[in-house]
């Protein structure tokens, strides 16, 4: 089929854009667009429903609430996107959040002047955990699922070790500045999230690094023959995922001005869900940062809307789970339609 199709059309790079433009708002065209952007449609339907049910949902205030809740997830979902693009998975980010939060709290306790040091320490701890994952996956060839599952358990245990089995409380008040101060009227984590999404979206689309990540996930052998140092790329995505988890951890700890050792528990699953809802393939090579951002906001909007409608937490889980599967089913189905 493609042979004949492509045989009729000459090489014409400039003409591609022109051909993509709709020349008629016909029924098939609209249907095609609906299928192509099914996730956006689902998102709009959810927003419409909540706006109809609650006057509070559509306010700017509530939007900020959603953004604040989304920020810590956003960072780990961004790292997770890169990992999943290479065909791997990082299960350890939730525990790495806990470990980095605890080390940050430990550093800053009784030492208000170490505020910035605690931030750096948390990120280094995250980076170190990610580097161990990356080393195991890229050099030792441990399957990513196993390597990061091990890190999940280890980091979680270490978080309790740092707090000697208890939360670290009584932190200096200035520790809260990291999460609660504002820049341009936005809380710092929200700014970090926006910067992170924009920066990584650009990196993945516009740099050679981004292209190499896609190539390693799409076909590691072909990437290697094209001169891509595949082990280095693999190592880097896990290290980055760890670093972002560390940053996320210190922001979460700062928000509550304490170090609970069970912080971030289960967050990895929400992050993975966001990536998958965003259209990424767990086999690697397919997915995008903007898709992940969309998936993340779909989950967070749903959380927020269901909270506003005072739906009990257990029903929220049921609805969320069903919606994740439904969203991905629609995506798989529409991908098949597109061929």
């Amino acid at each position, binding site marked *: 089929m*493609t*042979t004949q*199709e*492509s*045989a009729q*059309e*000459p*090489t*014409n*790079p*400039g*003409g*591609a854009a022109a*051909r993509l433009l709709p020349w008629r708002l016909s029924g098939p065209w609209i249907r095609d667009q609906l299928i192509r952007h099914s996730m956006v449609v689902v998102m709009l339907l959810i927003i419409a429903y909540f706006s109809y049910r609650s006057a509070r949902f559509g306010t700017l205030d509530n939007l900020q609430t959603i953004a604040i809740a989304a920020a810590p997830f956003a960072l780990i979902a961004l790292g997770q996107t890169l990992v999943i693009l290479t065909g791997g998975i990082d299960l350890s980010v939730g525990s790495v959040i806990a470990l980095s939060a605890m080390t940050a709290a430990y550093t800053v306790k009784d030492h208000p002047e170490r505020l910035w040091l605690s931030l750096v320490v948390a990120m280094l701890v995250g980076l170190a955990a990610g580097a161990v994952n990356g080393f195991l996956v890229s050099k030792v060839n441990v399957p990513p699922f196993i390597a990061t599952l091990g890190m999940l358990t280890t980091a979680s245990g270490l978080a309790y070790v740092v707090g000697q089995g208890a939360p670290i409380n009584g932190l200096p008040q200035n520790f809260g500045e990291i999460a609660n101060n504002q820049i341009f009227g936005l809380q710092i984590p929200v700014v970090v999230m926006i910067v992170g999404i924009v920066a990584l979206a650009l990196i993945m689309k*516009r*740099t*050679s*690094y981004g*292209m*190499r990540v*896609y*190539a390693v*996930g*799409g*076909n590691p*052998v*072909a*990437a*290697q*023959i*094209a*001169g*891509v*140092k595949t082990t280095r790329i693999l190592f880097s995505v896990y290290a980055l995922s760890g670093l972002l988890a560390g940053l996320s951890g210190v922001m979460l700890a700062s928000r509550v001005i304490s170090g609970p050792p069970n912080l971030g528990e289960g967050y990895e699953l929400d992050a993975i869900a966001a990536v998958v809802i965003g259209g990424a393939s767990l086999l690697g*090579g*397919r997915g995008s940062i903007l898709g992940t951002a969309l998936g993340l906001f779909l989950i967070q909007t749903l959380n927020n809307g269901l909270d506003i409608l005072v739906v009990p937490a257990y029903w929220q889980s049921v609805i969320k789970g069903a919606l994740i599967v439904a969203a991905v089913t629609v995506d798989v189905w529409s991908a098949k339609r597109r061929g």
Partner: protein
Amino acid sequence: MEDVALECRDLDKAFGGVPVLKGVSLALEAGSVTALAGENGAGKSTLMKIASGQVKPDGGRVLIGGEPLPHGDPQAAHRNGVAIIPQELAPIMDMTVYENLFIGRELRTRTGLLDRRGMARRARELLDVFGVEIDPQATMRRLPVGLRQLVEIVKSTSGGARILLLDEPSSAISEREVERLYAVIGRLREQGVAMLYTTHKMEEIRALADRVVVLRDGGLVLDRPIGDITDDEIVHAMIGRELQGFFPDLHAPGDEIALQVSGLHVSGYPRPVDLTVRRGEILGLAGLVGAGRTELLEAIFGVRRSTAGTVTVAGRPVRRNAPAAAITGGMALVPEDRKGAGAVLTMNVLDNGSLPRLSRFTVAGWLRQRSRGRQVGAAMESVKLRSRGLSQQVGTLSGGNQQKVVLARWLTGSVNVLLLDEPTRGVDVGARSEIYRIITELAASGMAVVMASSDMPEILSLAHRALVMRGGAVAGELAREDLSSPHVQDLIFRYAAGLNPDSAPAPRHTEKEGR
């Protein structure tokens, strides 16, 4: 003909408009072995797949014991006693031999539980019939490939198969294992099983077959009892093809040496390889499947490990085992397995086209979109790629056009040495002659080309010089004059198969074996 077990009548089949079988008829007798010979792409595998019901023919029919077999129904073929042993075996690796033998028809005890002891005992009996020493309790993974194959054969025949189709059964196994395979086939012949055996090795045809059938370009060109035919006649039937007009004219190569490989020890092969290629020269690598051609190309490029030796490109040594260094040194590899190793099918033409030379298209890591669009566009233009533009996903292109992308992506920079592995495998005839034109043009522009190919006409008509490989080493070398001599195909075949080349009626050749 008495007792015909399986008969094919006037089978036609085309894939995507390209005919692969043209009116093929043949009959398999019970208790006999028919050798199915022919070059790669002659239609052997397709014929077997039609006979076993995996592929539906466009025309013609398959009869079993005189009864027509429903088309494209592997279950029906299986019920009628047809079994196929594919080249790529698919046993369940982590189960035991007896479990593999009985999967799908497990023996049960009276209480309905698995009768493991019974199955193991029965497995032992089945294997003993063939005189094979295999422990039924061993896991498949622990067995060598040859024994796994025997287990598969025992499995099909013990399941009631009367017609056995073996697709190049000896291609992946050692010589010792081949003897055991011969013994098993002999035993099956005594039991009255009809066998069709694909091979292109002359010694196997001689050792096993009662009858020889040769396919060439989808047509049946020879069908005779083994006693009535000479080796030369078989070889001639396999490769005698019209060559005029398909290949472009060759330009004379330069004098300057572009690639020098000395004492390169490819990991897994006992003997080192030396070769030199001049600028503008096309060096063909001939040999049978498994002769080590792919491995040599990969080792020169650095994606396969080599343990000793030097690779020099245009006078400068290139670090071994480092593809990135090979690319900087001016080497390019177009691998055999296009989908598995060549292109990233999920990415578009532009991204695939910029992948090998990313650093040329970036400033501090950022892609220069316009310049890479222009350069990749020009490279794709130079090979006349047919696509809907640079943003089309490579996975949606035709085979020939995918191959053009894999080739053209190197042309955005200067290439001194182009390594091609089976450049036209799976490519339709039209795109084929275009790829030949591209290769000769690239050589004429001063590139040194090393081309591994199983397609005899490709080697004969496209190469300035050819090396015949066997067991990872160079078994013979043929100069341009030799390549156009009438006996060259026979000579290449003899080098590749390890036969004595002196018995061939060839006037000249350069003996390189055993160094």
